[in-house]
């Protein structure tokens, strides 16, 4: 592995963690609660995509599309079950409820698809040769798809009416309801978007590795690191934080120690927190939270 390869794979994996983190931040900003099941949604989307791709035999792009829609709908269901009945309860209760959902997803996947690691097709098979380095097609696909997705999310949140409605709900649910916004629909839309993003991340990442039920917890833990490094509650921060996590994982794993890879990420996190306690992009949101 030379440096360019490490860079590309680090950035690609980092963007995936960043996407998971971004979904968490979207939910956090709207309802003020961390979703501990986000990584498990990523894992579950891998299995759903496997079902369409390997069992039914659809091409990867189509199965990805179907998977993302299904994950979005699961997000709405998740919101209905794990958040809406609890919206007036203490936030601790909602956190525990999302943890319960994480258990349900993980065990549900194991019961439906079994404990054996599964594999599926890649969006872009093969690899590209660039000088002495061999870049895998899937990594490039991840970077391109994620870039398009991020541009789309930015456009949606900043330039459209729907985005304004979602941001208004995120800032103050009560005030939003006073000016005639349907908070219920807005929250449901946020969950749809957030879980669909986790679905995209899952369908992009799982073809590189095998799909296992354990992927959920590890990606959640890395996404938490991304959120804190980037600054709590900031969407660009989540992406940058994710890329930093991915790079630390790729380079640290090769040059420092592969056994302490995960620990290394958190050493970096603690270092960031010591020198910049609010994270790289931390600002107003953090004070509000």
């Amino acid at each position, binding site marked *: 592995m030379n440096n360019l390869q490490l860079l590309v794979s680090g950035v690609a994996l980092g963007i995936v963690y960043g996407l998971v983190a971004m979904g968490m931040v979207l939910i956090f900003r709207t309802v003020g609660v961390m979703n501990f099941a986000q990584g498990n949604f990523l894992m579950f989307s891998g299995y759903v995509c496997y079902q369409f791709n390997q069992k039914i035999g659809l091409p990867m792009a189509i199965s990805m599309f179907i998977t993302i829609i299904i994950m979005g709908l699961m997000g709405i269901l998740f919101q209905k079950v794990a958040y809406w009945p*609890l919206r007036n*309860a203490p936030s601790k209760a909602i956190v525990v*409820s999302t*943890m319960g959902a994480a258990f349900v997803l993980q*065990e549900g996947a194991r019961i439906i698809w079994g404990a054996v690691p599964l594999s599926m097709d890649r969006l872009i098979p093969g690899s590209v040769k660039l000088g002495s380095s061999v870049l895998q097609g899937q990594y490039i696909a991840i970077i391109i798809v994620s870039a398009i997705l991020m541009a789309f999310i930015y456009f949606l949140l900043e330039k459209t009416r729907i985005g304004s409605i979602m941001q208004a709900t995120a800032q103050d649910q009560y005030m939003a309801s006073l000016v005639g916004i349907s908070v219920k629909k807005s929250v449901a839309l946020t969950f749809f978007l957030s879980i669909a993003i986790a679905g995209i991340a899952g369908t992009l990442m799982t073809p590189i590795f095998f799909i296992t039920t354990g992927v959920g917890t590890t990606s959640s833990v890395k996404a938490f690191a991304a959120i804190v490094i980037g600054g709590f509650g900031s969407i660009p921060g989540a992406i940058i934080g994710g890329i930093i996590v991915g790079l630390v994982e790729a380079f640290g794993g090769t040059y420092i120690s592969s056994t302490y890879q995960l620990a290394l990420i958190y050493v970096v996190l*603690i270092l960031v927190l010591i020198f910049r306690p609010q994270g790289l992009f931390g600002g107003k949101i953090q004070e509000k939270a």
Partner: protein
Amino acid sequence: MKNKLTKKNIVLIAVGVLIAALVLNIPYIATSNYMIRVVNMSMITYLVVLSVYVLLGMCGQNSFAQAGLWGVGAYVTANLTTKFEFSPIAATLVSILATALFAFIIGFALFRLREFYFTFSTIGLMVILNSLFLNWTPVTGGAMGFSGIPTYSLLGFKFRTEAEYFYLILGVIIIVSILMNILYKSSLGRSFMAIRDNELAANCLGINSLLTKSISFAISGALCGLAGALYASMSGYLSSSTFTYNQSTLYLVMIMLGGTISPAGALIGGVGITLLQELLRPLENYMLLIFGAGIMIMMIFQPEGILGGGKAFYAKLRKKQQSRIGTK
């Protein structure tokens, strides 16, 4: 008024004696050593969940590192007894102190961060500790695990069977519960709760919140150290796969299900859920699925946990009764 109280007291004492008689006879009722082991494990779990209670229930700080601290206690005992020939009792005392000190120092560093930031840094602590347990082979046995930890001995009496361990751990948890009650009523306990309710106001009243929170982390570390030492010597074998982030999550779920309003919540959550998991063992394949769904349903109907729900129910019942009599 006095009459009513004594009547109530008699009932309470009778129930207490009945429960005590039942609990003391568990080793005789149990049909197999395995069952006693499960009960022992549930009591150790109670100790760790109690440590979550001190931090979350009393002080309002959420930590995901409890399984890691539990592991620190266990590995300290394991190393002291096998490599430095400490007696298990001495090793237990050292690991309580060591884990408390470790937690205090880490707490002092991490409590500079607030709320969510602190919680995330404890996830980091947990991940770092777990990779140490898995990879620091000379001290933790690495992936092979740590075996050959001696059992307890007290004044020449050796604790060997599960039943003997049952009484030992029962004795320990009774002492700990009494200490916890003292803490709950002490001024330190009240400072914890002041920080939980409003940190700014607590600061204005002259409470050093950084120090107080670190102390609460140290107390919870001491409990984890004790639980770890008991676990190490009871099972005789340690594996890094026991002390994971998922395990920490489970402890948090236990305290939330039991209720965070008093230490009894830790008892209900810790012991209750460990035993329930064992009861659901025949459904092994679906156990965690049912468990997860159960957590969600439970939170929807009882967001304050079993204890909170029970208390509200009791208050409602009393209100009804009183209104029937006609007094307010």
